[in-house]
């Protein structure tokens, strides 16, 4: 079912909307939640909570991009769940990929500067649009979806080393781009 029809079902308050959302995006949502939480039970709880959140959001919302709308909700709820987790954990892919972003940070960073994060997000979008499509998507798979290098390599039929290199080059480029734009993060 296409996204416009799914959104219409939400507006009609038809519960089939949730089923259709799950049919189309269930695995993606679970995959994203699992990348953050690294636990099937917690991930599925988050996905179910996300469906409820979408149900409560539409209407009044009528998202232009339903998959991104849904994934953002899943991500936010997964992060909230992660805050409650303690104890010795398998280090989720999320933390590993965040660690890698540290290389994009300038050596002269002043941590006391405040940043308009939304503006920085727009800037990163413009950076990404100028990149090779494959490299852009691999970057987002790693740092937005927190996918493992192994999964990304399998989907692209690349060696893992190639994916790691692409990510490394993208991080270097992003750092240089941000510095040129006057962002010493």
């Amino acid at each position, binding site marked *: 079912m296409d996204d416009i029809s799914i959104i219409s079902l939400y507006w009609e308050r038809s519960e089939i909307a949730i089923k259709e959302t799950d049919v189309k995006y269930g695995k993606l949502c679970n995959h994203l939640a699992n990348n953050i939480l690294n636990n099937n039970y917690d991930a599925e709880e988050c996905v179910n909570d996300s469906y409820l959140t979408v149900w409560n959001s539409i209407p009044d919302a009528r998202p232009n991009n339903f998959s991104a709308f849904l994934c953002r909700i899943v991500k936010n709820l997964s992060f909230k769940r992660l805050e409650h987790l303690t104890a010795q954990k398998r280090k989720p892919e999320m*933390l590993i990929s965040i660690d890698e972003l*540290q290389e994009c940070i300038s050596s002269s960073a002043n941590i006391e500067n405040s940043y308009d994060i939304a503006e920085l997000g727009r800037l990163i979008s413009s950076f990404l649009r100028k990149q090779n499509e494959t490299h852009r998507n691999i970057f987002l798979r790693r740092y937005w979806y927190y996918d493992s290098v192994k999964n990304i390599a399998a989907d692209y039929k690349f060696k893992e080393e190639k994916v790691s290199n692409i990510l490394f080059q993208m991080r270097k480029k992003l750092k240089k781009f941000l510095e040129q734009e006057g962002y010493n993060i």
Partner: protein
Amino acid sequence: MTKILNEAINLVDDDLISEAYFVPSNKKSFSVYKYMAIAAAFAIILTAVVLGTRGANKPAIEPTTHPTEQYGGMNNLEVINDSGIVFENTAYTDEEIKTFIEENKNIIAGNTAIEYQAFDIPIKIATKGYSPVCLGETNILVLDNLTLPIMIDDNIVGSVSLFKVDGKIKFTTSAHGEAWGRLTNALKENPDSELAFFYVGGYREIAVTPENKVYPLLSHVELPLDENVDYYNKFKTDYNVYSWEILNDENNYIEVVVSESDLDSEGETSDVITDNTTKVSDTVAVTDDIGRIIEIRLEDVLSKEISSIEVNSSTRLLLDQKPITVTEEQKEKILSYISDIQYTEAVDYQTMFGGSYIVKLNYDDSSSAEIVFMDKYFYIYSSDGQSVYYADETDNSVNLAYYIVDLIS
């Protein structure tokens, strides 16, 4: 800083996020079809050549009409392979499980106690568990993914999941959520039966009775299982079954009582993420006999004969990955970076969000020193306990970090 960058990436445009899951091989197929159509319009021979060369390499994949179809929801459920189960890895022995739980019972029980504010009452950690079979195009049972329920009073309240990384047993714990109440009900309502556990659709866990009554442990949506299929007998093994009897057998759990005073001063067990204001000097500074802090100078670490250099990163360390011993040429390069560093002594050690790089210098006299780089700060820690940290006034430590990234990636 890393958090700011991560938050900003979170806000990139929606279309970029959606497109990120478009599988490139499918898009190549589109390109090939378009190219073939154009070539065919101009010359039949050229078309034949294109077909001849491209066809040999073209993957036989149907173009995906939506980027997320490969991650679609329940469509794959209709395809459950009838032909049996593939077993992966090796199951734990009873002794391994009991030893591991015994060694980690305080952390596991402590976390459960915090989650439920369950102090001074028995918490039972199972030492017998189950490994669900994942049903699909290939039915897979990963033998070293084991679920061990945790009980308080008469109810399952969470679980310990065991798995292996590089041959070592690791665990995660889970608490709260609907799954545990549902699991308790499923087992209690069938006290005389062994239930079989499966994942359907990749990740949805279900418990199935011998009569094929299905208990979804989560999932509010309907599961399109075929009521004519005897899932229980078709896919039951010794490893994916569990029962109320097994759970409550006193030989199959370790009981722990946690008092609030057992926990540390912050009320939580330690996490892998270090705090941004960690002062290394509070934990590793060494004093001599009369209380003076012993200093180790950067030039000291280069003054002795170095037999080998190993490099690593904090991320790899957390994943228990071994350091890499560098070649002679790489060793000289690293030493030249270190000797070029201009530094001043620092008071605080700024810990970023993980992401440090480590150079370990192994000396001929069997002692060693570690130099840990993180952003503009680095510290040196020697094997006899001396340590000191510096701020780098140049970019040399950052350049060294980049060099190490190249070596370890």
